[in-house]
């Protein structure tokens, strides 16, 4: 008789912070205390609060323990599982600043600041079920949507439901999913394909990984539904090879679904056939672009090809193909079960449902969140994300990865939806959200994202291959103090050119991080160029170390530590730094015992 369930996150985040060791320690301790027949350990996907991992939830109480180490396990077993007492030092109960905690009352997960504004649809089962056991998925209404579609709906009904739901692609483009399916359904061919884009590559983004790790069957089920809707019998999941846990769980899920005949021939006895294969990406960002992805599945160098023809007309192996992102698929079974109206009741007029974001950068709760479309950026950063650590000032949020842009602090009340973000020069993208504070230099941030594109450009078309490189050279010139009058205009000219003439979406959007930072932080660019100054104090080449004469005791320590002998002076008198020799390493500042050295 099982009386307690212990859910331990086995997603990549918590695995990295040591959840496997925690699980092993728990297993041993349960055996030692002869509790292994009464307490069941469930390895789940991501809970979202990766910053506080490894994470554990104990049911039926719903107690949320964070940052657990194997050393904590004996106490948790002894106190919580045997004696029924909370180990309060490990309990996570941060309910946010604006809510008053009631003394003595345990805080449920949904009341915490991190979770209370979230709405979990795509992540519904993540952190709840064991993704390696199909029965747990089925127990959460899994494959009921596929059953409903195959037995009660025509393909046209399915497509209409998708259209009415207002679901738009979650991979970045935001194209209406139902319309895409309609195009593929309209294409006449004996052979069609359904493809899942799981080549998540934006720096800092891990939404799709978490869905695949935590709820792989939702994706399989949705792909089968898509297959039925457009008349395809074969699917491919293109997942990056850097996601070993996701790949393993996907393969387990596919095998189990085949065993249950939820994939394969004559599914539910309806005569519908559908099967899925996995293809691994070899680490090229560009393969997340849909035509490059298809080219890669075909066995060729992953490079975009011109559209039209669109994949819905001529896609994989020249056949009509729909390609959707992992998160898009993860919404679909619930849309089928609960109806288009339920889904479209959430969100804004043109952006329905929810969106998963990976919070990163200068934010307290780095991790994964799912919020209704239209949530204000402010709510995400300050309420869900817990604000900026260290009392620093919020400067900007970067969304949309290398194709996106920066939202300045002045626009923190922007509604997060497809169109509002586009309007302010950023984009939803696949869901990376990187928070920047006052110490971040916006020119450097632009260079960081552009460098990513320069390295990851497929090299096929001229504007992306050479143009982005030239832009990066200008940016690096600026951050190294060699910026020239006219550099901003040169950047803008190249950016507009690349946007207008690059072959694929990735190339066309590559200049966005530069354009959006120029738009909102032009003064920072100008300070670098004209005053040779980095306002954030970030750009090393522009830093200037000086000794405050009134604070310097003339101890000579800094002069001894300086690796290039740039500091000189007489003992017991103020020392000086020769700016021509200084390499801005900062060792003098670290070594000074009197805080007499300042960096400007």
């Amino acid at each position: 008789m099982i009386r307690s369930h212990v859910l331990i996150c086995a997603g990549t985040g918590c695995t990295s912070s040591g959840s496997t060791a925690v699980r092993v320690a728990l297993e041993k301790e349960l055996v030692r205390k002869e509790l292994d027949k009464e307490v069941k350990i469930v390895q789940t996907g991501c809970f979202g609060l990766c910053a506080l991992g490894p994470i554990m939830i104990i049911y039926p109480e719903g107690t949320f323990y964070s940052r657990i180490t194997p050393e904590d396990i004996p106490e948790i077993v002894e106190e919580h599982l045997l004696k029924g007492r909370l180990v309060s030092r490990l309990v996570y109960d941060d309910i946010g600043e604006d809510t008053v905690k009631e003394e003595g009352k345990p805080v449920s997960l949904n009341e915490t600041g991190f979770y209370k504004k979230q709405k979990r649809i795509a992540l519904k089962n993540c952190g709840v079920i064991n993704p390696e056991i199909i029965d747990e998925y089925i127990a959460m209404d899994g494959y009921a949507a596929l059953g409903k579609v195959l037995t009660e709906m025509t393909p046209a009904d399915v497509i209409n439901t998708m259209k009415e739901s207002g679901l738009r692609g979650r991979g970045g483009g935001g194209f209406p999913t139902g319309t895409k399916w309609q195009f593929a359904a309209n294409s006449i061919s004996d052979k069609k394909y359904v493809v899942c884009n799981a080549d998540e590559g934006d720096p800092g983004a891990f939404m799709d990984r978490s869905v695949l790790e935590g709820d792989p069957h939702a994706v399989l089920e949705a792909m089968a539904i898509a297959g039925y809707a457009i008349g395809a019998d074969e699917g491919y999941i293109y997942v990056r090879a850097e996601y070993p846990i996701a790949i393993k769980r996907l393969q387990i899920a596919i095998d189990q679904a085949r065993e249950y005949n939820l994939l394969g021939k004559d599914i539910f006895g309806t005569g519908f056939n559908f099967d899925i294969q996995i293809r691994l990406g070899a680490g090229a960002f560009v393969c997340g672009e849909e035509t490059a992805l298809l080219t890669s599945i075909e066995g060729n160098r992953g490079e975009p090809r011109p559209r039209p023809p669109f994949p819905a007309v001529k896609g994989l192996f020249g056949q009509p193909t729909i390609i959707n992102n992992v998160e898009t698929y993860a919404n679909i079974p619930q849309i089928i079960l609960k109806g288009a109206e339920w889904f479209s009741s959430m969100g804004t007029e043109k952006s329905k449902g929810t969106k998963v974001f990976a919070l990163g950068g200068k934010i307290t709760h780095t991790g994964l969140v799912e919020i209704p479309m239209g949530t204000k950026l402010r709510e995400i950063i300050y309420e869900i994300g817990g604000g900026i650590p260290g009392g620093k000032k919020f400067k900007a949020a970067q969304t949309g990865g290398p194709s996106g842009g920066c939202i300045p602090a002045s626009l923190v009340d922007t509604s997060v939806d497809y169109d509002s973000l586009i309007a302010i020069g950023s984009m939803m993208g696949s869901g990376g959200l990187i928070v920047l504070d006052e110490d971040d230099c916006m020119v450097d941030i632009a260079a960081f994202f552009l460098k990513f594109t320069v390295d990851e450009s497929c090299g096929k078309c001229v504007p992306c291959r050479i143009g982005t490189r030239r832009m990066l050279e200008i940016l690096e010139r600026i951050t190294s103090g060699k910026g020239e009058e006219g550099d901003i205009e040169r950047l803008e000219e190249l950016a507009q050119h690349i946007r207008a003439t690059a072959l694929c979406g990735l190339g066309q959007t590559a200049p966005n991080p530069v354009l959006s930072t120029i738009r909102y932080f032009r003064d920072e660019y100008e300070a670098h160029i004209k005053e040779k100054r980095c306002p954030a104090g970030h750009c090393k080449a522009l830093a200037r170390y000086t000794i405050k004469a009134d604070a310097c005791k003339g101890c000579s320590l800094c002069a001894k530590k300086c690796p290039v002998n740039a500091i000189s002076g007489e003992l017991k008198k103020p020392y000086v730094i020769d700016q021509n020799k200084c390499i801005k390493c900062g060792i003098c500042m670290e070594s000074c015992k009197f805080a007499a050295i300042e960096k400007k």
Partner: protein
Amino acid sequence: MNTVNMTIDGIKVTVPADYTILEAAREARINIPTLCYLKDVNQIGACRLCLVEIKGARALQASCVSPVGEGMEIKTNTEKLRLARKQNLELILSNHNRECTSCIRSANCELQTLCNELGVKEYSYEGSKTESNVDDLSASIVRDNSKCILCRRCVATCNEIQNIGAIGVSMRGFKTTVGCIYNKSLADSPCINCGQCILACPVGALHEKDSIKDVWAALNDPTKHVVVQPAPAVRATLGEEFGLPMGTSVTGKLVASLKRLGFDKVFDTDFAADLTIMEEGTELIGRLTKGGVLPMITSCSPGWIKFCETFYPDFIPNLSSCKSPHEMLGALIKSYYAEKSEIDPANIYTVSIMPCTAKKYESQREELGDDGMQDVDAVLTVRELAKMIKSAGIDFVRLPDENFDNLLGESTGAGVIFGATGGVMEAALRTVYEVVTGKTLENVDFNVVRGIEGVKEAEVDLNGTKVRVAVAHGTGNASKLLDMIKNGEKSYEFIEVMGCPGGCVTGGGTPIISANVHAYINPKIERAKALYGEDMGKTKRKSHDNTEVKKLYEDYLGDIGGHKAHHLLHTHYVKRNKY
């Protein structure tokens, strides 16, 4: 045929529905600048020069890959487009080795031409350059990636047209390069040295391995007796290098220019072509009558030979054992001619003028020589010969016609047509027919094996024996043919394969034609006309009527296919690994 109606720059056009916008614009007599586009070879939209504005489309579109549509409104010549094209051109220039004056393609460079046409007057985007190297280890082809603009025309040619795949695209972004796998040299790749990549290259990133210096050195060496022979296709193509129209036959001027360059003797590879027919025809009859390996496949094309050795080694026994014609002639110059003229063969230096880069590689094959002497000492391409003529100050166009030297200089029409696809087959059929049937062939034109269809087939009745023949040109087409034979779908007795599409007239050593000319003129057809015209004008059109060939057998070789002929005129092949 489905058609669509559209307007381009206000001009109404009706074009086939499967056209691209670029093709439609050309119908409307509008030239959109292109660089990576090469008709029938490469359509990838990479260079972004052929951009057009399509009403209602978000970004500018590459016309070479954009399909036409009913009611489309296209603009090809707006300020925005002119600027965008120029900017892309300037970006290309910023990562291009601009040593134009010393570049082999100076004045025949598509990039240079575009810069002139689009008004590039400054280098706006100077910056770092992609790391590159020069690969000159191949016997035939040199690749200089500092000049490569990554149009990928060479890659498409090697992969799609020739079905070899020796080169491809490696690395990403700004580091992207074209080359062999694992940065190997072409010399260590399955490259067959056909040089079709050179013809595809719009700039100077690819050229033949230079032999001009060696030939000048031999000509300047008083101890050397330098003997030259030009291949059939040389006379059909050399004129283009001097501004003569494509398809002009310049045989007499070719001979005159070679004599003025200082060659001691000017013999004709066409003679050796006739000789090849005697040997190869006899070999075929032998295989047909004595149960030899069939189909027999011709062996004149060294690119094809290496392709067969590397990719289809099962067919090595099918290859005729005949050396290629210029190698036969090289061997005879150093034996028969040396003996007749009493010159020590060690002092003879043989030069072949070839429409071919693979012949450079072939001439270095160990088995193509005797007593430590190679049959052929140097191979010049048509382009290299033109450079020599120009640097020697010879006024080629106004030269009088002169004749080849006797002994190894006579040829029939059958030898001349060796330079076009189907030509070897036709020449062989003219002789084999008369030998087998004993009858005179009244109409010597086998039109069925002429033309530029990829694979041509025919059936010839030889006294009741049906001989099924096939002709393939370009190794891509050869693959298709051999695969059909392997699968049992097709069966033949005799096959001609030429490694280059179109045969030798469009070989890798012939004059380079820009993509813009390719769009309207097919050199495979135009150049072949020169050879068929010369064939028509000859009184003797069958190889076995060549009196110098007959004399060669009577005075020196003895029997056709006999011992001495075998020693000098035949060779063998080896299976090769790709890597």
